[in-house]
Each structure stands twice: as structure tokens, then as C-alpha cells.
């Protein structure tokens, strides 16, 4: 089993609902976020093009954060979800330096915090909070190893890309373009 997410960059309007839902669901301390919005504008007026992406930890299959962690606090959990064991984290920040997506931050309590794909919800068969709340229904979450899952189906139909594949991280968040 390999959990992944496909996000439709053509449908996303950048409303930040996913960001707020995540902060509420996961009690993210004020001033921090586990997911965020990137608006990328290219071209010269009037020929402009905009891509809006909801970004978060890519739950990489070859995660540099897991590799660089000296205590195994960063580890692969169920379905390849990259997690942090806060009681093993010493706060050395090597994982933060090693993440090309800058998806990690230091929780005010000292340990490193990040997106968990809402594992506590996924275990109950629910979607992650960001997916569940999206008003344009632009996110798909599921098992990439299962060809019948919603996320596998949509990726068969649509063109997609990952972020910085050349960093060698094998990310598991896909942007439908």
C-alpha cells in the first residue's frame, strides 16, 4: 500500500480552506501551517498564466528527511506516510535542512512537526481534512498501489507532474495539469 494524493491545479482556486481545515483538525500552533498555497504567475501582461497549488509534505518514497534523521524519529508509517515520533526527535533540524519542499517546521514545544496525511482520520477510513473540506473537490486521496482507487483512476485519465522530481525524492503528491 502506498498513500498518495492528486491535486487538480486547474480546479484549485487558492481559497486556503485546506490550510485552515488542517490547522483546525491537527491543532497546528498559531502562526504555523502544515499545508500552504502557492500561486505561480508566468508570462507578461496580457498573456498571463497562473497555476495555483495546494502544497504540503510530499510523503516521498525516497525521503531525505528520513535518511538524515539521526534518531529515526522521522520514519515511514503505514502506507509510506512520512511521520515524526515527537518523543524521539531531538530538534537537530537536519530533516528541515534536507527537505527540498520546506515542508517541516519546529513546533513551539521543540520537536519537528509536519503533515501526517491526517493518519488518525485515514485509519478510520476518512479522507485527510484538507481533501474532505475542499470546496472545488480538487483533491483525491487514496492508495496508489490499488488501480481501482479514485486517485489511481484520475491519474490514468489526466496529465500530471510532481514537484522537483530531479531532487530524487520520488514524491507522492501529484499535480494534475
Amino acid at each position, binding site marked *: 500500500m502506498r498513500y498518495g494524493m492528486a491535486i487538480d491545479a486547474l480546479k484549485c482556486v487558492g481559497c486556503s480552506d485546506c490550510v485552515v481545515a488542517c490547522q483546525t483538525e491537527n491543532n497546528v500552533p498559531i*502562526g504555523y501551517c502544515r499545508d500552504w498555497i502557492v500561486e505561480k504567475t508566468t508570462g507578461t501582461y496580457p498573456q498571463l498564466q497562473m497555476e495555483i497549488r495546494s502544497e504540503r509534505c510530499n510523503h516521498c518514497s525516497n525521503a531525505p528527511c528520513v535518511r538524515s534523521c539521526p534518531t529515526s524519529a522521522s520514519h515511514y508509517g503505514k502506507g509510506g506516510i512520512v511521520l515524526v515520533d515527537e518523543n524521539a526527535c531531538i*530538534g537537530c533540524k537536519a530533516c*528541515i535542512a534536507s527537505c527540498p519542499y*520546506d515542508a517541516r*517546521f519546529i513546533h513551539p514545544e521543540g520537536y519537528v512537526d509536519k503533515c501526517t496525511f491526517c493518519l488518525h482520520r485515514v485509519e478510520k477510513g476518512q479522507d485527510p481534512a484538507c481533501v474532505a473540506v475542499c470546496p472545488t473537490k480538487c483533491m483525491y486521496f487514496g492508495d496508489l498501489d490499488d488501480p481501482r482507487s479514485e486517485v489511481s483512476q484520475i491519474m490514468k485519465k489526466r496529465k500530471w507532474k510532481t514537484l522537483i522530481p530531479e531532487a530524487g525524492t520520488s514524491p507522492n503528491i501529484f499535480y494534475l495539469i
Partner: protein
Amino acid sequence: MIEEIITSGRMNHEIDPQLHIWGWEIPLYLFLGGLVAGILILSGVFYILGREERYPFTIKILPIVTPLLLSIGLFALFLDLSHKLYFWRLYTIIRWNSPMSWGAWTLMAIFPLSILWSVTWLEDLKPQWFNNYKWLHSSLDLLRKYRQKLAMIMVFFSLILGMYTGILLSAFNARPFWNTAILGPLFLVSGLSGAAALVVLFSKETREKKIFGRIDLLLITIEIFLLIHLFMGFLSGTQVHIEAAKMFLGGPYTTFFWVFIMGFGLVFPGILEFMELRKFKVPTAIPAILVLIGGLLLRIIIVDAGQASRWLY
């Protein structure tokens, strides 16, 4: 013209707008770690070569400061941790993939080794301090019998310590400026050069000063070569590596690096040491102090610039 504007909705402290997780603690530790590695390598190697009488300061006296320098470095490292009370978790596991893990274990080996090594010499220098401790005296005698083996083990772990301080950074693929294998050898050579400078600075033997001045000149030359190599590697690399090099070739780090590190930290002391070799009268302390300051500044700028460099997407 094509304009590209990226607006991000993220504002996490220590990541945005630019990574700044490591302040003065890490460069100070890298500098002291490298210096200790350099001192122990010089001491161990020249002891193995049997130069005890010729270079007494290098072999016997200088290593005595290493436990203190390491303690300061480790304390800085401890200050940097944000989840301090859990630091012991480092020693519950060995992770070969993580340079920080095997660095922590190397320190676990080198710290007691440096204490053992310096205490045996301390007793030779100040036997009166040990008069009241018979048991210590006899165990040190035993240790002295195995000094040659101790030196070999110590040099081995010191080499790892010296290299690892660079590899620690070069393992971070996500920060293009750090992501070069040159950092390992560069930090090792810089540490050795700093150690040689300490000998020049504090040794009382003229012959020892002279020889280590020459050794330092050689190390400075290698270091300049490695630094040029670093930029050649970046400039022939991918776009992100070219961008990383540009920070030093016209970018924000240009003046600081080329004037204070390459200029006053390497080339100028190199010229002074070369002039001394040519029998000009040069106060030996000047190049030595410049080399030491240059070594610290090199760590500071590399740790800082690495955090400023990133993948573009």
C-alpha cells in the same frame, strides 16, 4: 520578457522567507570539531613517526586543550537542539544513512580518546600533579605501553571527525550550495591548517614553528585549490548549482568571501608564510591568527550560504 511571480501562503518561522535554522552554534561546533581533529591527527601521526623529541609542542602539549575545545563545541551543539531533553535519543540507535548519527557516535569515541591521550602526556609534563593518585599512575603506565595503538585508533577517528563535519552538510541534497562532496576534504584540510597555525602561534621551539609554518603553507595551498574546485564543480553543474555559485560570484556573499576568507584567511597568510620561507622577517603570529579566523569565517559563511540556496520550482 517572461515574469515569474510565486506567492506563497506559508510563513513558518525558521523556513520563510528563507531557511535559517542554524545560527552561530553550528559553525562554531564545526570549527572546533575540525580544529580538534586537526590537532589530534598532527599529534598522533607525528608520534607514530617517532618525532616526539623534535615536535614536543605538537605531540605532547597541544592535545591537552582538545577535551576543552570539544566540550565547548558540544555545548554549542547542545544549545542548538530545540528538543534538548531528548538528546540522549542519539545514542539509542546507529543510523548509517545519517551523517549526524555517525558523527554523534564518532564523538562518543573521540572524546574519551582525546582525554586519554592528553592525560598520558600531562603526567609526563607535570608528574607532581599525579603523586597523590597511585591508582591513576599505574593505569596511565599501562596506557603508555599501548600509546602507539592508541595513536592509530585516535588518528582514524580524528580523520572521520574532520571529514564528517563537511559531509554533514554535503549530504543535504535540498541545499545546492552544501551538496558537494568537496566539503568533506575541505573541512578536514582547513581543520589541519588551523591546528598547524596553533603550533606556529604557541610553540616555543623555533625549528618546530618553522616546519609547521611550511606544513601550513602546503595546507593553505590545498585549501585554495579545493575552494576553486568547489566553484568549478558548481559552475559546470545544474541550474540550481550555478545559482548557488552565483551567490559568491557577484551575489550577496561575494565581498565577504573573496576579501575576508579567500584574501585575509588564505592568500595573504599564504604569501606571508611564503615570504618567511624566503628569509624575510615576518611576525609568525600574523599569518597564524589570520588562518584561524579565516577557518571560523569559512564555516560561518558556508553554513549561512547553504541555507540561502535552494531548489527552484
